[in-house]
């Protein structure tokens, strides 16, 4: 009985500690969503339990997104880590009528044009997934571990500029987080300030 009481009280203590958080904090459960991707398939975080999942907030018109796709940097990352069994979901939360909003056809055209390598490009025109993660930027990155806990939240890399020439000299936080996670280590830099355009919510 005593242990049950203790567990209950600890649970209460843990839940009160979270109230103030903004984006779901590193170490907490990743919010789930159920959305359709550009190919018409349903995508959720929970269906990939047991795998590492990367969430990348995406807006093809945003200069910061163009920086990483135009240079091939994002595609390279997607290819490397999906090759290692990581699930990569790009999420477009731009509302209809605003910059970067895509229909399924437009999304598929963009995938072909940019030769992107993500597992799926998820369409979130209502901003449901975006708001539940408090995704603020494109790109805003999350890494979720096989237990469904967030292990990284923040920027794609350490140089907050729209300039592609800064990519090579920057530290790619997502790459480091994934490499450390896959090696069974805890992520050394689990929380950074994301940079980019604002997500275009309605």
């Amino acid at each position, binding site marked *: 009985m005593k242990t049950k009481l203790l567990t209950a009280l600890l649970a209460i203590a843990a839940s009160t500690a979270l109230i103030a958080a*903004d984006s779901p904090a590193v170490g907490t459960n990743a919010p789930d969503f159920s959305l359709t991707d550009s190919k018409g398939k349903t995508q959720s975080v929970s269906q990939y339990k047991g795998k590492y999942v990367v969430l990348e907030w995406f807006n093809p018109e945003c200069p910061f997104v163009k920086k990483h796709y135009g240079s091939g940097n994002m595609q390279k990352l997607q290819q490397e880590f999906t090759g290692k069994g990581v699930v990569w979901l790009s999420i477009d939360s731009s509302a209809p009528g605003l910059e970067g909003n895509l229909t399924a056809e437009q999304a598929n055209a963009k995938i072909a044009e940019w030769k992107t390598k993500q597992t799926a490009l998820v369409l979130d025109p209502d*901003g449901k997934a975006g708001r539940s993660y408090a995704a603020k930027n494109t790109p805003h990155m999350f890494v979720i571990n096989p237990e469904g806990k967030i292990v990284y939240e923040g920027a794609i890399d350490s140089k907050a500029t729209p300039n592609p020439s800064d990519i090579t000299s920057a530290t790619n936080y997502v790459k480091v987080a994934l490499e450390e996670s896959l090696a069974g280590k805890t992520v050394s830099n689990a929380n950074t300030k994301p*940079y980019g355009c604002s997500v275009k919510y309605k």
Partner: protein
Amino acid sequence: MVPNWHTYWKFPGDAGIPTEINWKLPDGWKVGEIQWPIPLKLNEPGDIQIYGYHDEVLLLQEITPPASLTGNTVQLAAEASWLVCEKICIPGNANLKLDLPVAAQSAAANEEIFSRYRRSLPQNWPETKVARASWQREGNELRLTVESAALANYPAADFFPLPEPRVVVSHPKTERASDGKIIFRVPIETDDKNVSALNGIIVFGQNDNGPDRNAWSLTAPSSIAAAAPSIPDAFWKYLLFGFIGGFILNLMPCVLPVISLKIFGFIQHAGQDRRRILRSGLAFVAGIFAWFIGLALLLIGLKSAGREITWAFQFTNPYFVVAMSAVVLVFALNLFGIFEISLPQFANRGVLGWTAKEGDAGSFFQGVFATVLATPCTAPFLGTALGFAFTQSGWTILVMFVAIAAGMAFPYFLLAAQPAWLRLLPKPGPWMLRVKQLMGFLLLATLLFLLAVLGAERGVEAIIWSSCFLLALSLACWMKGAFIVPTASAISRGVVMVLLLVLVLGSGYFFIGNKFAAAKTVAYEIGHGDWQPFTPQLLESELKQGHAVFLDFTAAWCITCKYNETAVLETAAVRDAFQRHGVTKIKGDWTNADPAITKILKQFGRPGVPMYVLYPGNHAEPILFPELLTQSLVLEKLETVSAQVAAK
């Protein structure tokens, strides 16, 4: 810029990047930092908050030419890059060149725009009598408290942070306290415990984003950064302190009556079923844990709500003290045998008081009760341990309280688990009844202490009205003992029960709800002519003049404080020494949790009173004393003080 488009401030907020300017200047020329005018705070859908400029902005930089120049003209070039956004964002850049003639004198150009933007720059932080700022780290929140009468006149006040690149901050919130202080809460998402303050600007005006706004620059004090110890090794050490402190709590005078009764319980049970002893012991232990964990959760809750937290804070609430007095008196009457307490599930067994044949629930509440009584006593080690824990995260506080509970519960746990050791205790017999009654008197003594606390908090009237209530309560207890007995008929028992409830509730309403509530809060008499009452201003002015100052922080309900005062501070030898060294003696009364005192307690990392600090004078570092003073210690420190001061 086209209307409604914006560029970004030095800290762009949730999105965007600041404008950058790279100068290409001839050799010997220097350029200063960009001076950023006060930005607008703009909100976008999805709770995205950014800081930037609409329409037009002038970013000032000071360019210093070398001492001498040759040639007729000089070219100043810069590469500027920016991000301009409305619904969409467009990065821009430009290479700019300016050819200036070299001359001994010059007429300023564009004066109007320069002077307009100079006016919109944040100003330096004003002197401390105009505004004072202090930072506190509360878990994942940084709290900036600004005390300023000037600021209180502006309806709009905000804090715009300028965090270091590695520090991730969320949206600051502004709160106005009733005393004119403004509190800014900045959630930070960086686990680095050394981050305890931020740079930023305090923006104030008639309206948010209004044209008449002013701002003060705030630079994070670097000294604060090292304040809280945060080494894991220290954590275990403090946890051990908590455990030892919890164990010692058992011996403190306010806990002893309850504890001795528990021991009696064990003696009674000796020779009985081992399982029962274990169950009853564990229930008692669970009671101890329940109180401490509950207290920890309450404190964590208060802390996350931004309140100052301290040990024994509940004693600063007079109603809590009244409730405690009632419980103590009822318990004492029970020990005297005036009535018996029957807990519902054991009612039909005619329980002979809590101790004779207790059930598990009885044991549990005994455990709770023992710990409630323990809080006004801080035991040695406990202050240090709690002082550490209160500066840490909610988890650390919880774990620390569990450690204290474990320390306090330790002996019962042992006795319950190893009933064979009970043989070391004396055999049960009629003597136990006498000791029980004697313990009743010890509880009455505790009651006197509680009433004295009430008197200090609320004056003589409060003692009188709460005593009236206590008298009615005693009468009710007697009625219960005399008339609500198994031999009485159900009807007469019912009638007495109703009368009894009317008596308790009526007197409670009248004496406590009415009369007691009307009794005014009084300042605790800081007696002994040579002590001055504490105010931050007094301390500051004394220290400014280079005087030596001794601070005594006390409270009416603090027994350790009273002991230190009588046994050490007010002895002839110590009084003499204070006088000889010309030490200004300042006493602060924390009976009603004066926030100014809470603040200074925090500065020294103490969770509550007592606290003694000696400022040796001539601006030397203050010396913090342990909770329990000795004459020799105080005298010794006073001697080194005079030596230090003389050496300067």
